[in-house]
């Protein structure tokens, strides 16, 4: 199985060829936006972090920003920093440059002021964009493809239609030599024994259990303040209206996205995938944080099931939206790419839908744009905090 992608110097392959303008710190966000505005097609990557953080939290932000810069869908990077931030722009620059791809850097305090920084950055970005525009897609083996598995706006159809169809797709892709990643550990409570049993060896099984247990402990501590007992729900109002009653029920429906393949490893947040096959990523269930974690892990495409319907996207990776709710699909056709609601209506089997979904993913890999990409949705860039 092959797809048409952009080979990178470090051996990875992208399904897009983005010029990323990447802020090392939030103070550089507007300069990043202004540069990207003057080079249409450049993708601004802004965020609220990069300073006044300490310890493991700062390290996670640093690691994730470097991974985003190194991402296979990114052909070149312009790093923009302020000059005094705790995560130095130079460190982000060096981390991304180690991948071998073209990288440039602008530091606002060195350029003088924001206007000079925008001018310097625009000139550098223009040259990078020209270089990128000469690159062509090449035929690459499917083993270079990693798909992130995600659900958001879950309702009762998620666990019986959309997610099982994704599970079939995941099994097919892994069998063909590709990789997939399951995450949203806050929503795996009650399913840890099922996942651990599917680990390739007892060490990975233990890592799976420990990862879920640690997340549950964090939730218990956070939920124990009596003043906020009305904010203790582990599932959303939308989940509840949609028929999901407990976090365990949500988890059992959610894990069907991972099909039946064995779990080969557990990834830390911000860490890049090293093996092939099905992985678990340690990330909270927050839509943005989990998709950011999946992309930072190296996923070139995200498959995102949604029962209630959400239009969100990610700046440097296509998000393929799938719903198992026929009503949601009719209502949100402009935002949803694949209708697994046909399973509920008895028109397709889960196996058929899974096979069609794999074909859709290959089309997206080859260049077909998702609805979220076409409409410019970029909400999901959110780096998880510790």
């Amino acid at each position, binding site marked *: 199985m092959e797809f048409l992608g952009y080979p990178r110097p470090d051996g990875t392959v992208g399904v897009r060829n983005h010029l990323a303008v990447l802020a090392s710190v939030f103070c550089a966000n507007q300069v990043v936006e202004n540069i990207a505005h003057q080079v249409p097609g450049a993708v601004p990557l802004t965020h609220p972090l990069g300073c006044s953080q300490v310890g493991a939290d700062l390290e996670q932000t640093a690691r994730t920003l470097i991974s985003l810069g190194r991402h296979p869908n990114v052909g070149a990077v312009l790093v923009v920093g302020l000059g005094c931030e705790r995560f130095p722009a130079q460190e982000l620059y060096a981390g991304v440059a180690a991948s071998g791809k073209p990288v440039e850097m602008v530091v606002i305090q060195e350029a003088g002021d924001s206007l000079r920084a925008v001018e310097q950055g625009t000139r550098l970005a223009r040259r990078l964009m020209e270089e990128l525009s000469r690159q062509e897609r090449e035929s690459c083996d499917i083993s270079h493809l990693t798909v992130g598995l995600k659900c958001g706006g879950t*309702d*009762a*159809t998620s*666990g*019986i239609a959309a997610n099982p169809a994704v599970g079939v797709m995941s099994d097919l892709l892994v069998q063909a030599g590709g990789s997939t990643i399951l995450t949203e550990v806050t929503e795996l*409570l*009650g*399913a840890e024994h*099922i996942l651990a049993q599917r680990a390739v060896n007892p060490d990975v099984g233990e890592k799976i259990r420990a990862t879920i247990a640690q997340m*549950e402990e964090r*939730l*218990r*501590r956070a*939920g*124990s303040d009596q003043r906020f007992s009305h904010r*203790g729900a*582990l599932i959303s109002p939308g989940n*509840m209206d*949609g*028929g999901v*009653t*407990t*976090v*365990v*029920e949500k988890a*059992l*429906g959610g894990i069907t996205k991972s099909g039946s393949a064995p779990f080969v490893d557990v990834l830390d947040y911000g860490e890049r995938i090293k093996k092939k096959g099905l992985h678990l990523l340690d990330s909270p269930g927050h839509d943005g944080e989990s998709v950011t974690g999946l992309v930072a892990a190296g996923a070139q495409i995200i498959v995102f099931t949604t*029962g209630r319907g959400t239009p969100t996207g990610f700046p440097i990776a296509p998000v393929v939206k799938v719903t198992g*709710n026929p*009503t949601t699909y009719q209502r949100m056709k402009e935002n949803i790419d694949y209708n697994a609601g046909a399973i*509920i209506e008895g028109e397709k089997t889960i196996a058929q839908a899974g096979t069609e979904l794999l074909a859709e993913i290959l089309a997206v890999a080859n260049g077909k744009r998702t609805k979220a990409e076409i409409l410019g949705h970029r909400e999901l860039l959110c780096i998880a905090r510790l």
Partner: protein
Amino acid sequence: MKRVIVINAKDNVAVALEEVAPGEEIEADLGGQKVILTVQEAIPFGHKIALRPLAVGEPVIKYGEVIGEATQPIAPGAWVHLHNLASRRGRPA
């Protein structure tokens, strides 16, 4: 007969694939045996219907696994949701 799905043979709840009004009937598999139930109350699309009586504290089974415990006595054909089902997972001690 309104359409429902029983996901796993061990389940004691079915999922409504269409809205069910009080007094309507559903047919479902309970542990390999076909049961016909008269639904007691309005069940929204995607919500759960009890397939047999459940006592307070008894596990509610869906996907072949325990999703929580009954917090009220539940009759066959009853709507199963936040008012009569809860899980202890993730809750403060």
